[in-house]
């Protein structure tokens, strides 16, 4: 069941009605669970086996970890307060047991993901290696269909287990409530990856009907449908037509595809998240924010704190920090400090940032692999990691340049320059995403520059990028796309400058204006959205990840 369908709207409406029925007030979480299971069953009942398996492991693992912590605290309370050695030995014992349970659970939970997502990637790599080494062996790929939301609920389960291990949250004792945390239907398709601490209390708590929640939720959903249906799905054929056979197009077309993809991807992913957050908001549940106007970022580092925020936070909390403060990384720091350059100003800077640099590279390598089991995604991750690493390593140089150029005195133009520069760097990264392969990505980049033919592109390629549509329809598509993109930009600019949501600003205006805006928005969406028979409604891009 697609989020952009009448069936989803009907399904959501029925769920919301059942959710607020007074008779079910104490069982709201059960309504959500049943709705989530129905939603998930629509994608294929066999896939439910995977989410159930992950839930069983997570549930039992969390209970065991929580039990170990409780036992430790109980035993600790019985110890003599002055017996520090006994305490240490107790801590060591339970930490070892806990770590063992955690690692076992993580191996099982992430093992499913790794196997389903990366088995064929590994087989292809091994086959390539065999061929390179002239070994007469070939492994056959395994036919598998990736279960819906696998990587999203796996990351949520992993985060929850780690949080329980650290004693940050208590384990949920109800299996069905753990299942709800992992399969909550608005987030199952493309996240956001919520933390247990943030989402679980909301899912299991009691919620009163509030008109404003319904209104805000619907407004957010309307905005999400606009981004997805009017912009993303209209832009999709341009990107797919070019990338399907980019060698038969000019290099300018490749460049154009990357720019349109930047628009499509943002509208698609953030639109989907708005629909999700809107749907949850109608049930008085606040989902984690996943986007904060990423194309206004001033650096790649800043971009990754604004784009897919929930994945970034997950990586930061569960990979980056544990690595950066680990003993191994501390050795790197000390190694540089004790080296010949350790006493220089740059040496001190290097010893401070190097552990972070290495941790960043590892995180981005994982982010690349998370996006897909292909070398091009590894390239995507490494590219981003390298850019951030360079910016970290050269921070003193950049600071010096800023001082010399007195950038502080031309704040706004410099801010615009930073955003444009960051956008260019981000767009280069997108080439890895849309190219057919890693070598194809480099080829596209080279062609974009070496085969730049603007007038040829405008006359011979641009009019045909929507496929077989009439000239009138083609013109209309471009007009709608440009107008909608400008509108999206204007709204984002207002949000960026004011730091407020448009719906909050709108809510302060006269009621008639609010209703007029909602009415016009709904009609424009229903008229110019890509939906219904004869329209190429696209799946969400991030669904495949």
């Amino acid at each position: 069941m697609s989020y952009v369908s009448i069936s989803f709207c009907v399904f959501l409406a029925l769920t919301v009605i059942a959710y607020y029925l007074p008779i079910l007030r104490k069982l709201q979480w059960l309504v959500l669970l049943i709705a989530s299971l129905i939603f998930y069953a629509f994608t294929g009942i066999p896939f439910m086996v995977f989410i159930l398996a992950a839930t069983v492991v997570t549930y039992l693992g969390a209970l065991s970890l929580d039990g170990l912590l409780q036992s430790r605290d109980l035993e600790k309370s019985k110890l003599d307060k002055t017996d520090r050695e006994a305490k240490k030995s107790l801590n060591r014992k339970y930490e070892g047991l806990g770590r063992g349970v955690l690692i076992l659970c993580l191996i099982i939970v992430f093992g499913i993901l790794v196997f389903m997502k990366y088995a064929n990637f590994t087989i292809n790599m091994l086959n390539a290696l065999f061929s390179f080494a002239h070994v007469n062996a070939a492994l056959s790929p395994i036919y598998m269909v990736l279960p819906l939301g696998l990587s999203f609920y796996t990351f949520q389960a992993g985060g929850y287990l780690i949080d329980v291990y650290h004693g940050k949250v208590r384990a949920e004792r109800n299996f069905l409530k753990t299942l709800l945390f992992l399969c909550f239907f608005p987030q199952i398709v493309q996240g956001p990856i919520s933390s247990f601490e943030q989402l679980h209390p909301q899912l299991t708590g009691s919620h009163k009907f509030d008109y404003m929640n319904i209104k805000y939720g619907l407004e957010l959903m309307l905005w999400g449908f606009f981004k997805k249906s009017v912009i993303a799905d209209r832009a999709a054929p341009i990107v797919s037509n070019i990338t399907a056979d980019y060698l038969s197009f000019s290099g300018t077309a490749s460049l154009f595809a990357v720019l349109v993809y930047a628009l499509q991807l943002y509208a698609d992913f953030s639109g989907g998240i708005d629909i999700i957050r809107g749907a949850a908001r109608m049930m008085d549940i606040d989902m984690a924010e996943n986007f904060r106007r990423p194309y206004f970022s001033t650096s790649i580092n800043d971009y990754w704190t604004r784009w897919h925020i929930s994945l970034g936070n997950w990586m930061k909390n569960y990979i980056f920090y544990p690595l950066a403060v680990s003993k191994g990384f501390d050795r790197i720091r000390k190694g540089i400090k004790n080296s010949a350059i350790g006493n220089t100003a740059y040496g001190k800077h290097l010893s401070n940032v190097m552990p972070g640099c290495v941790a960043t590279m590892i995180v981005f390598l994982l982010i690349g692999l998370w996006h897909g089991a292909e070398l091009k995604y590894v390239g995507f991750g490494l590219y981003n990691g390298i850019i951030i690493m360079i910016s970290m390593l050269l921070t003193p140089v950049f600071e010096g340049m800023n001082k010399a150029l007195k950038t502080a005195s031309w704040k706004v133009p410099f801010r615009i320059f930073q955003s444009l520069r960051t956008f260019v760097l981000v767009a280069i990264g997108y080439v890895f995403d849309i190219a057919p392969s890693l070598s194809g990505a480099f080829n596209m980049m080279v062609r974009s520059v070496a085969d730049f033919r603007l007038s040829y592109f405008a006359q011979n390629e641009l009019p045909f990028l929507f496929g077989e549509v009439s000239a009138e329809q083609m013109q209309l598509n471009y007009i709608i796309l440009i107008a909608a993109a400008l509108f999206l930009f204007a709204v984002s600019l207002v949000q960026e400058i004011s730091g407020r949501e448009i719906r909050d600003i709108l809510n302060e205006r006269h009621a008639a204006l609010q209703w007029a805006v909602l009415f016009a928005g709904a009609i424009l969406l229903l008229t110019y959205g890509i939906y219904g028979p004869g329209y190429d409604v696209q799946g969400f891009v991030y669904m495949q990840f």
Partner: protein
Amino acid sequence: MNYRAKRCIKTISLILAIILAVYFLQEFVVMPWQPRDVQISGFYKEDRDSLDVVFIGASDMYTAFSPALAYDKFGFTSYPFAPPRNSDGMWQLQVDEILRTQSPKLIVIEVNGALYTEADELVTEENLRLFTDHMPASQHKNELIETYVNKRDRINYYIPYLKYHGNITSLRDALNTMYERLSFEGRGGLYMKGERTHFETQSFENEIWATEDDNEELDMEPGHETALRGFLDYCQAKVDCPVLFIRAPHYVTEGEEVTLEFFHRANRVGSVVSNYGFDFINFDKLHSEIGLNYDEDFHNSEHLNINGQKKFTEYLGGLLVEKYGLADSAHSDGVRAKWERAVEYYNEFVRQGKALGEKDTQKSEYEFYEAESQELLNRLSAGLKGS
């Protein structure tokens, strides 16, 4: 009224306003509005039980017979419920619809729809949508959708906006369609009762084949034969009024072998129909008796033009009166007034059409609406530019 109730009313009002706006756009702007759509919609604008004869067929039927002229000459009312490329797979649902809305004294089936060679043309989405899009809501409409459309797609038939919402390609087109549709509603349907014709004669170089004595039969495509036999069974079991099968006038030339095949297949259809006890008249064998002249009365090999239509209407009308006793049909004053207006409009239509010259392809009153709308939009646009 408390705060909550007020909010509730406001929300419901907004939802209703959106539904109404979408309904308006669906009915008056985005739905297809070509001559064939107008023709089908026009059928539903006819007063209940006001039609004496209803014709089913394809383009060769609605160009061959003029209801207004027939009313003028013989006094019976009729309507061609006959969109282009109509196939025999659609006949039963059309007859069901005719019997649901009218009580005709006679149903005439032009058999072109049984002569096609492609089996997949029995009930296409295009054919089905042509009816369901313009059919008012009814149990029969629901049954049609449930019979022919898979479960997943049915919603698009009940709410055509889902399919057609992207049809607004320019403001001018949208205004044009809106004007035409509102005019249609304002006039209460079609003055000329679904008739469409041609004012020109296309020249032909090849020799005309003599068909009057040619009784050779060619097998029908099996899918169409099954559909035809199913329809004949249905007529025997369910239709109380007489059903007449005809083949409207065509001509066959040396260069158009397909038309000869159609002719021979029509002979086969005639045999099948006669075996079921229904009347079949092949007017391709009566060209001389009707007085049709290939140089003046045909638009092309498949369609009569305005001259041929007049001759054929007078011939067929006379035959129907004689054989089915249609002349003494009695209708209310309101219905008679509408048909008298139809005759006036038809005479004016023929006068204006002929005045435009042979090269003009004006075919139906639809084009009059369109011309009127375009003129209005041009004036509006000139006015806007001027201001």
